[in-house]
């Protein structure tokens, strides 16, 4: 395990074991108006998303602000009930069907780390109560003494001072330390999957690397799988085994990290990649910067949702009459774009269904 402190996990993911399998996930938020709270439309935050996460693997989920990344993570964790459509199987069991005790059992195995280290910790609770709450809720400690010992272990694991920090309140810590407290809370139940929702975006650049390293070390030690959300491709390259690029509620392209960064097929992926500042000062300026804003998910563009910003857009991209094909252009490399057909050996494996969104109450 030497010399890999900052590299990808040595053990690597176990691709024979799927931890989470998401199929055609949709989450629409109703927009209500008027006296009787009539539903006048929907925010189609997530609109048909599929992916798998393997044991011990990090799947990066990338896309511009508002494309639905947070909603994907929270919906899977049952924080956005009810789901609109789709399934999310955790070890073969659909999480959306779980109730009561079964749901609580699932809670032990899936956790979350938030972006904002300030609002993610209860200002009125000590570190001990914050980190130890899960242990109490699940009856995993017999008494206070045992709980304290467990919490101290967790703090130590996350690079905090187990003696001095345990009785402090969140406001006494820096952003990076707070994020470590959030991580300690998330790993307290030894989960198999953690949704990391932009866990370093709010931190100083110098601290970001430390927190990422911590997450990687924990993954190696505990075999945790991560759904790692970020809005630029730069952050996830380092930590992810595979990356999914999301645009307006859908997955545009998904592949293992090397492939995606070396051979991006979707124009959106290409645009995001060229937005990463190059370390080489002589590198040419980005010739095709991403222009315009992300359209609203209330009334997404017809056809390929990226077409208003795509420089390769053709007529067949712009209407709902011809569905946008999904191609498998390499092992585990899928892309939802007509350009997939130009890649050698591309197989058409499906298509984006336009279907019901236009028939909805909007």
């Amino acid at each position, binding site marked *: 395990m030497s010399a890999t402190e900052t590299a990808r996990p040595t053990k690597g993911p176990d691709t024979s074991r799927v931890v989470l399998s998401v199929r055609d996930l949709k989450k629409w938020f109703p927009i209500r108006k008027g006296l009787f709270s009539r539903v006048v439309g929907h925010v189609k935050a997530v609109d048909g998303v599929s992916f798998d996460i393997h044991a011990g693997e990090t799947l990066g989920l990338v896309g511009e602000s508002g494309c639905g990344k947070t909603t994907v993570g929270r919906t899977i964790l049952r924080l956005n009930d009810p789901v609109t459509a789709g399934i999310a199987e955790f070890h073969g069991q659909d999480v959306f069907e779980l109730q009561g005790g079964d749901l609580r059992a699932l*809670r032990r195995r899936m956790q979350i780390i938030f972006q904002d280290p300030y609002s993610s910790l*209860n200002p009125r609770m000590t570190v001990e109560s914050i980190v130890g709450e899960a242990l109490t*809720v699940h009856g995993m400690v017999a008494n206070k003494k045992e709980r304290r010992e467990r919490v101290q272990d967790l703090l130590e694991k996350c690079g905090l001072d187990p003696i001095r920090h345990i009785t402090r309140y969140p406001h006494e810590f820096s952003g990076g330390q707070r994020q470590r407290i959030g991580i300690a809370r998330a790993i307290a139940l030894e989960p198999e999957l953690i949704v990391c929702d932009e866990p370093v975006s709010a931190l100083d650049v110098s601290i970001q690397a430390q927190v990422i390293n911590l997450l990687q070390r924990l993954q190696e030690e505990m075999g945790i799988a991560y759904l790692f959300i970020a809005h630029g491709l730069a952050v996830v390259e380092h930590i992810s085994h595979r990356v999914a690029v999301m645009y307006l509620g859908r997955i545009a392209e998904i592949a293992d990290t090397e492939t995606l960064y070396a051979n991006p097929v979707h124009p959106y992926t290409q645009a995001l990649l060229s937005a990463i500042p190059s370390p080489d000062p002589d590198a040419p300026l980005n010739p095709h910067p991403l222009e315009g804003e992300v359209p609203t998910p209330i009334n997404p563009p017809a056809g390929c949702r990226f077409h208003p910003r795509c420089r390769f857009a053709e007529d067949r991209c712009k209407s709902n009459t011809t569905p946008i094909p999904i191609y498998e252009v390499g092992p585990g490399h899928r892309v939802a774009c007509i350009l997939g057909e130009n890649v050698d050996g591309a197989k058409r494996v499906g298509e984006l269904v336009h279907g019901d969104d236009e028939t909805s109450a909007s």
Partner: protein
Amino acid sequence: MTSSATVVPTAEKGTSLGADAWRRLKRNRVALAGGIALVLIVTACFVLPVLLGMDPETTDPTRKNLPPSLQHFFGTDTLGRDYLARVLVGGQTSLLVGLAATAAVVIVGVLYGAVAGYYGGRVDEILMRFVDFLYGIPYMFLVILVMLMFSDTERGNPIPVFFALGLVQWLAMARIVRGQVLTLREREFVLAARVTGAGDMRIIVRHILPNVLGIVVIYATLTVPAVIILESFLSFLGLGVKLSWGQLVAEGVSVVNPIDSYWWLLFWPSVLLALTLFSLNFLGDGLRDALDPRTRR
């Protein structure tokens, strides 16, 4: 993190929010002074009259309108009654009405607001529509309506007054708490608790209520004086309790005239009323700060 090197104050001991709050409150001189003043006022009103066998009712036509003296510290009123006794016994009513109504307001308002805010949606809509509806009725009208439901004799004791005043005051409390809970519910630490498997009860009690406590305390300390003053107003209308600070102030005002200044009749109940209100305010501020671990004390 902060200044001195020996910052590790509460380390190994293990602290609860309550113990911490108490520790911080004790260091806040102003709040402490407010608390002590309140205790003194309450003790004086409830203990002294009994201890010294004071009589607020016996009239003595030969001792009318005497200014404060060693015999009558607060003077006597227009019927020759000992004014100290009247002010202290009147204080019993005012304090009782103020504190009891506020306690009811806190309990009902917080529960109601918390349920509406936490469950949201339909529940919230129905509960808050009802509050809006009551709000729409001029509150004095409501109070008077309730007061008139009781008979004359019943009206003489504090229960109906307390009931009527609590009835209007809880509305604002419910609204405030509901608004707070509505935003807290979506805060990430609450989501984290839900992902952990914590139930609704635990989330409300451990995560939400402690974070609305500060504003509840402040609002409660504003409610006590509001109720006391409302009660005075009822006294003014002849609907209040027989003997209270409000009543005494009202009487005091009525005898102020340019020729004979019976200033003490207005002075004493006003001073005690003001003292109570200030003490409550200081104590409330201190409590709010003490309940917030972010306050450095």
